[in-house]
């Protein structure tokens, strides 16, 4: 499966019409120790690039934007007790939520891993 990235450092991975969403390894590293993930409410409908939820580190709080439009169907409850999972694996066990009803055409507005790598070099 292919991951796609936003300029705001979220990733999304599709499995059928279901998308898994998180923040990139780069973002997790830049934020430092994550202390809290404000998980989105299940059932929430979001549009691509709208604020989905927020993430807090020791000295910062940042919005997480929806990489694609969809409805939140599942959140990573483990982050409630162990937000550090994001630091340990932002693009694996530190996933934030799953979205359903995703229009795959929206992925065209995102970067693939190679393009994101290039984008990071330019920051």
């Amino acid at each position, binding site marked *: 499966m292919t991951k796609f990235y936003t300029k705001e450092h979220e990733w999304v991975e599709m499995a059928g019409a279901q998308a898994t969403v998180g923040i990139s390894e780069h973002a997790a590293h830049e934020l430092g120790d994550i202390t809290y993930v404000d998980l989105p409410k299940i059932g929430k409908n979001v549009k691509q690039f709208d604020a989905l939820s927020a993430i807090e*580190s020791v000295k910062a709080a940042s919005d997480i934007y929806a990489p694609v439009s969809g409805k939140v169907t599942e959140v990573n409850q483990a982050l409630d007790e162990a937000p550090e999972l994001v630091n340990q694996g932002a693009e694996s066990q530190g996933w934030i939520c799953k979205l359903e009803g995703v229009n795959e055409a929206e992925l065209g507005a995102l970067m693939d891993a190679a393009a994101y790598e290039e984008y990071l070099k330019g920051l």
Partner: protein
Amino acid sequence: MGYCPNTPDDIRDMLAVIGAASVQELFAPIPPELRAKSFDLPPGMSELELMRLMREKAAACGADITPFIGGGIYDHFIPAAVDHLASRAEFYTAYTPYQPECAQGTLQALYEYQSAICRLTGLEASNASLYDGGTAVAEAALMSLRITDRHKVVLDASVNPLHREIVTGYLHGLSAEAVVVAPDGCASDLARLMASIDDETAAVIVQSPNFFGSVQDFRELAQKAHDHEALLVVSCYPIALGLVASPGEMGADIAVGEGQSLGNHVSFGGPYFGFIATRKRFIRNLPGRIAGETIDHQGRRGFVLTLQAREQHIKRHKATSNICSNQSLCALRGLIFCAALGKKGFEDLGLLNYDKAQYAKSVLGAVRGVDLLNPGATFNEFTVALPKDAAEVVQRLLDKGVAAGVPLGQYYPGMERALVVTVTEKRTKEEIDRLAALLEEVLWS
């Protein structure tokens, strides 16, 4: 030492430096009609004369009047330790005392204050204080909107009317709505409150003892609110908590109140402090600052401001509140007051208030034409119905040196004859008897 900041020599020197010939010339750019012609001050006087003058002025302003007024602000005894410890320079003159490396004492005091508030309210987390009781109720309403993602609160009309006004003002700006529920006589109408809760309700806001002095149990209301995934906010009177069930015991999710009764003098509107406490699971939605306990890299106990990512200096428009300051010194007085009394002392204080007010109820209730309006439980405050306009009666009693209470007509149309009378531990039997005798006199002679 000299008490005059600028001697004539000082003034001459300063004028010489800036090149002005006189003070009048210095102020020349200000149009003459805007300048003070003279200050109505007597010539200098000795400390003894000055103290006598100030005592006379204080007496003329009502310092000699015996207060039976409450309505949110109460005349309680303040142990000398409160003034003494709170005026220590380390606390009193500290500026921006929140850098943990240089303000461990202040942070520890706030941490202990929070612990005292948690003990009193029966809840798990407190912040380091808010401006006053009214903003505390409003912040609790905002908290409930954030937590539930809903836009309606049910507001009991027996909550302090001044506090309610702050709540509705805040909600108006947020396009949220307050559904105000009228009381049943002097008590909250529990049935109507419960019927007003629906799946759109963020919170139900009630107060006990309420503005009429009635004490109520809100356990059933808490259950009903929780059934609809709404919160219960209880505004409480901290001194009463020595005697009555705490908000936490009643199932409240947020407890708030005015902290003035805890070691702060009655003055013209403040400074006071508001307290707010909640369940641990809501701590990220608590407004204001929180002092926390931690250990340093050598394992030593230390104190810090914690969960700062909720605050506006980091989170900007997404902060939990636009309030970024707290009433540190007033809250400190509250802590010292609680510590000076201790658990037993707090219970005793509650009992004293209750007993004296019960006595007042019996003697005032015996005055011809006076009816007691709280059939249920009260603490140190109760409402009476008079045969005449309460505001007029209060004015006539003021002329006799007694402030008889808060007339309700100004807050509750139709209750022009109702008066809320407050009796704290400071009122003596003689003062209470005198109130009853004067009331009889004013009503019937």
